[in-house]
């Protein structure tokens, strides 16, 4: 017996189809822009535009995630929404903590690293809420 319904399998396949090319393009552009910006063009007016290039596939990554959530059923939507709210609270808490520590001369943590933490924290919260709701113990 399959663990997933036909609708879920179709939704997951669609998600992979949309997410995978976008994330691969993002990773390639991160390396490409870094390489390009090391050259002469890094000092020109084009630098800002080139630096923002990875944001184009990022839009498609976000679009794939939003479309996946929209295709999910009501229980999954509830979990995703709750996870988003809890993640926001954790990030805010950590952000304020880091800010207060920096105020007294603590280590200077890059904002880029701080925002990157959103993804792993979000997935941990999703997993926790699934366990809490007993959704991981299907019969």
């Amino acid at each position, binding site marked *: *017996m*399959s*663990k*997933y*319904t*036909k*609708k*879920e399998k179709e939704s997951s396949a669609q998600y992979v189809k949309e997410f995978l090319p976008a994330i691969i393009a993002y990773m390639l552009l991160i390396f490409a822009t870094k390489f390009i910006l090391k050259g002469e063009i890094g000092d020109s007016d084009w630098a800002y535009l080139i630096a923002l290039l990875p944001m184009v596939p990022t839009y498609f990554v976000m679009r794939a995630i939003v479309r996946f959530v929209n295709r*999910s*059923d*009501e*229980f*999954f939507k*509830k979990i995703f929404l709750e996870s988003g709210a809890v993640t926001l609270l954790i990030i805010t808490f950590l952000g304020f903590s880091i800010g207060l520590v920096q105020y007294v001369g603590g280590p200077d943590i890059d904002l880029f690293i701080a925002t990157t933490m959103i993804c792993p924290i979000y997935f941990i919260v999703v997993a926790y809420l*699934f366990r809490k*709701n*007993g*959704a*991981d*113990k*299907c*019969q």
Partner: protein
Amino acid sequence: MENQLRILRATKKYSQADLAELLGVSRQTVNTIENGKYDPSLPLAFKIAKLFELSIEEIFKPDSNL
């Protein structure tokens, strides 16, 4: 909220996956409703009632402390 979903499913000999397919939801959703961890939306409750040819009140009962 208490419900009779597990019993009703058993009488029809549906697995959680079968019921999930029929309702257009995930197996996890059926599981959490049966365990009383999640209360379905009104449209889903109507769908469940229609499937078992019962009224919502016959399937879902409010908690005794309400």
